[in-house]
């Protein structure tokens, strides 16, 4: 393996009370677990008032390259599963506040919620979830449209 192919990315995030600045570097590492050559991503995170370890490490199968795809993957992970999936299930459906202790019932309801997230995406619905709930509660037409593969506006 030759010299590490280093790329630098700076992501400036402005939050409510503090500004986080992240820098990413992608460098060559060595393979592990018998997989292809691994890339090591080191990110320096400097957050005002935070005393956390400023470096995070990731192990990947893609060869080192531009930093942006790696940064997109890291941010996309949290956006994809934690915010748009788990967060939606907890906030919109209050999944964690279920009153039932029935394992099978809660499992099936979780699957249904996941299916609805997929339906909303597949039909290209851009309405926020509360608006979808209100429209479906007012009339069964939007709900039937979604089930039948049509979008609602």
């Amino acid at each position: 393996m030759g010299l590490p192919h280093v790329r630098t990315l700076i992501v400036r995030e402005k939050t409510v009370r503090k500004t986080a600045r992240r820098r990413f570097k992608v460098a060559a590492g060595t393979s592990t677990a018998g997989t292809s050559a691994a890339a090591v991503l080191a990110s320096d995170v400097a957050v005002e008032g935070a005393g956390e370890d400023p470096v995070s490490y990731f192990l990947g199968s893609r060869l080192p390259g531009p930093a942006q795809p790696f940064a997109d993957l890291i941010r996309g992970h949290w956006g994809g599963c934690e915010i748009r999936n788990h967060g939606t299930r907890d906030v919109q459906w209050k999944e964690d506040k279920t009153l039932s202790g029935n394992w099978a019932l809660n499992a099936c309801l979780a699957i249904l919620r996941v299916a609805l997230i997929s339906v909303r995406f597949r039909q290209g619905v851009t309405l926020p979830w509360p608006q979808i709930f209100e429209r479906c509660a007012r009339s069964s037409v939007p709900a039937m449209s979604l089930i039948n593969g049509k979008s609602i506006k």
Partner: protein
Amino acid sequence: MAPHEFAAALNGWLSVAHGTLPRGLAIDGKYVRNLVLTLGLSEHESGAPAAIAIAVQAPVNEETKKEGELTCAHRLYATTPLHGATITGDALNCEPQSMTLAVEKGAGFLFQLKANQPGALAQAMDVAAKLPPLLPAKRTNCSTASRYGGFTVSIR
């Protein structure tokens, strides 16, 4: 309907829409009130699931949680079309079998590396320590960054 069969039916329906474009898939588990462990592969862009699995009903403790998530992840890798995808996950997924399964299915992976893989972490720290230091942010601009192969993104 049995949850496992329901999940399998949903996964079959979801797999029909899988395209061939590269995509990011986030794998993570979620407990429903410490009762049901669901594990999903979610699209980065939309949060829409690519597949979901339900762990077997078991007492909740750290060891069971770890084994449940990994067991489900391995089952998902084995039964989900992953060609061209890049799977991202937390440090729990950073273990040899998950990596091997993902690569065997034609997917890439990017897992966070923490102390549960001490050898790989030490190696990564060694690689990072040999990197040149990051330039001060105020001295980096778009033109400079692009000249050296990087770039700058500002999010407000």
